[in-house]
């Protein structure tokens, strides 16, 4: 076995050179080289040989990791996070930003360093003791209040300028009318619904209905997980968060698709092994890819998480969670469901 392989490999190498140089010569009749071509080009004979070789490989299920065997632990782990998220949602809810509640946000750079307590005192004196203060640098603050009129805004700015001294123009200023978020929420739900239906139909056509349903469950898992992380960490939930969720909706499914593609291929080639074995094998086969792609996408995002300003961090945080969740769900959420479904309604070898 070993010797056959090694020798065929060597032979292939030797033959390849003259064959390929013949291939470059367009005028050369193919038949003249047919003997050499056989060794390399996939003509019918070599395809048969390849099939045999693959089925021999298929017997070799020496895979690195057993993802399927520990199925239930992964399911429990996923459920714990999401249930914690739901509990937090009912106990504390989301930390909605002004995009959702309406209100005013000013980011101000002061002429000297200011502590939260100092600024809180000043704001109380002007009559805005309830403002939410968040320092973005030693001398820079985000001040969130209810919606402000121009006069109120000017009052705050001039008072702070007299007491502490501020840099003008201020870093940013944002005013959102209450109720505006209704449109954002409606649009988001429409966009989510439309893309879910679109993806459902597409995966159904390209794979099968069970893969389509599993894909949607993975998507919903990813969205629920992001939402859970937002309630648990109580990070501000704003328009950026919505954009991030929509982004993850479009992106995270590619991990699942790659695994589905591999399962689809294995099911065609390998008629011998049981369904869970095939799934485990497929996941192992694409594991390097899943990790490599997760890595390459996460690199710039992690850098943003470290060096970015508040807006960028908002983006990076959500994407970070979403991308990891997408990779996780493609392995640990999709496969248990596929296997459970198949054991109940067998379509492939149990």
């Amino acid at each position, binding site marked *: 076995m070993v010797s056959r392989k090694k020798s065929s490999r060597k032979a292939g190498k030797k033959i390849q050179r003259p064959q390929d140089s013949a291939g470059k010569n367009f005028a050369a009749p193919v038949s003249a080289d047919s003997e050499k071509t056989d060794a390399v080009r*996939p003509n019918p004979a070599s395809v048969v040989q390849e099939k045999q070789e693959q089925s021999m490989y298929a017997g070799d299920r020496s895979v690195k990791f057993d993802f399927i065997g520990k199925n239930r632990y992964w399911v429990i782990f996923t459920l714990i996070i999401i249930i914690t998220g739901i509990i937090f949602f009912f106990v504390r809810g989301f930390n909605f930003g002004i995009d959702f509640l309406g209100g005013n946000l000013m980011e101000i750079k002061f002429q000297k360093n200011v502590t939260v307590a100092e600024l809180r005192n000043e704001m109380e004196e002007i009559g805005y003791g309830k403002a939410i203060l968040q320092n973005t640098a030693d001398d820079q603050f985000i001040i969130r209040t209810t919606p402000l009129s121009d006069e109120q805004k000017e009052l705050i700015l001039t008072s702070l300028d007299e007491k502490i001294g501020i840099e003008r123009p201020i870093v*940013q*200023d944002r005013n959102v009318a209450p109720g505006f978020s209704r449109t954002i929420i409606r649009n988001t739900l429409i966009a989510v619904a*439309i893309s879910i239906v679109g993806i459902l139909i597409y*995966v159904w056509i390209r794979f099968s209905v069970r893969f389509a349903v599993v894909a949607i469950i993975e998507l919903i898992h990813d969205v629920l997980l992001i939402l859970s992380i937002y309630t648990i960490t109580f990070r501000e939930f704003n328009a950026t968060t919505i954009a991030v969720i929509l*982004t993850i909706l479009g992106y995270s499914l590619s991990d699942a698709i790659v695994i589905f*593609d591999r399962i689809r291929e294995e099911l065609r080639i390998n008629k011998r092994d049981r369904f869970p074995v095939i799934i485990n094998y497929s996941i192992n086969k694409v594991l390097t890819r899943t990790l490599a792609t997760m890595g*390459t996408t996460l*690199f710039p995002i992690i850098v943003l998480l470290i060096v970015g300003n508040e807006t960028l961090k908002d983006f990076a945080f959500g994407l970070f969670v979403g991308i990891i969740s997408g990779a996780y769900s493609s392995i640990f959420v999709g496969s248990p469901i596929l296997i459970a479904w198949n054991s109940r309604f067998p379509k492939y070898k149990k």
Partner: protein
Amino acid sequence: MRSRLSNIITVIVFAIIIGICFYFIYPFQSSIKLGLDLKGGTQIILKPTETGTEEVTDEALDKAQLIILNRIDELGISEPLVTRDFNRNIIVQLPGVDDPERAIDVIGKTAQLEFKILESADENENPVFGPTLLTGDKLVKASAGYDQGGQIVVTMSFNDEGAEQFAKITTENVGKRLAIVLDGEMKSAPVIRQAITGGDAVIENIGTLEEAKDVALVLQTGALPVNLEIQESQTIGPTLGQDSLRQSMLAGIIGFVLIVILMVALYRGLGAISILGLLCYIIIFWGILAGLGTALTLPGIAGIVLTIGIAVDANVLIFARIKEEILKSKSKYAAFSEGFRNALKAIIDANITTLITAAALYRFGTGPIRGFAVTLAIGVVISLFTAVILVRAILFLIVDSRVVTPGFMGVKIDKRLSGTAVKEK
């Protein structure tokens, strides 16, 4: 599979495309327009609601947009952008405004000017009006200034039709009080002492000259056919935008270096070629953004980060397959062909699901989310060309070369083979 000639042609076509892109990219500094969140500026989202007379139709909104543009021009703000979103909100973007509050005021003012007879007014200044006799659309000119008494006024001239009506009104109502109502607020109600035929009228009771100028400006540019409610106004100072841009660039560069290291570590020579593909991807992406004049926003940058991930992903999928084929003792040529063929389905399926979402986001998203959807879609399509077609052409051109050894592809043949052999026994 494909002939050498077609591979050479592919590479040449890409070289030409990249040349064209450089034409758009050059000069570097000004090639890409930056969105408000990156260069600073003011964005206002205005929600139209019906005025008493007119419904919110597309024509009314078109007219409103035009009037807003005129007002912005009168304010002397350059490069404004007035667009409409899916919910028919009007979105006004003004880069670098000195006095955003004033701009927001002027833009959102309906400027519905009405002349009515004041029938009665009680102590609490609750006026009772007669029917509207004349409106602001008959104006030809409005200007701010002082009257003989040194009071701040806005002087208005009517067109012929307006002047005629005004003359008629003043003739018929001598001795009564004519109320001048701006956006529902009575500005003044002088007693008509005699018929006015000259076609001029004045608005009094205006606080400052600045305010008078704004009133004249909005009257001059005409009343908005719809009422506009300010839903959101946002002003980003120039420093914040610069910070975001600098940090994103830094993240991009560090991220790119890490991607290079990872790809070369995993796939050696193949990885290096995919980096070449990735560079072409970035140049073409940049060229298209510059060519289309699309403004780059923060969500757009997020989109670019993701599409770089997608572009690299396509190569990772292909190379992983090539490695597998090499391990099955295929020849280099067969391994490359099979590798591309096997990976293509997954690449296309994954990209199409991404495009489906991008389409939904574009159709139903607002402002920045749309920008993100556009960059995502452009990126997905370009990445298919660079990561699949270009990289494939280059690989097949060098497949014969002595350089392309298993080591070049990141495969350790001997160790692996003996490993499988042991397991197979």
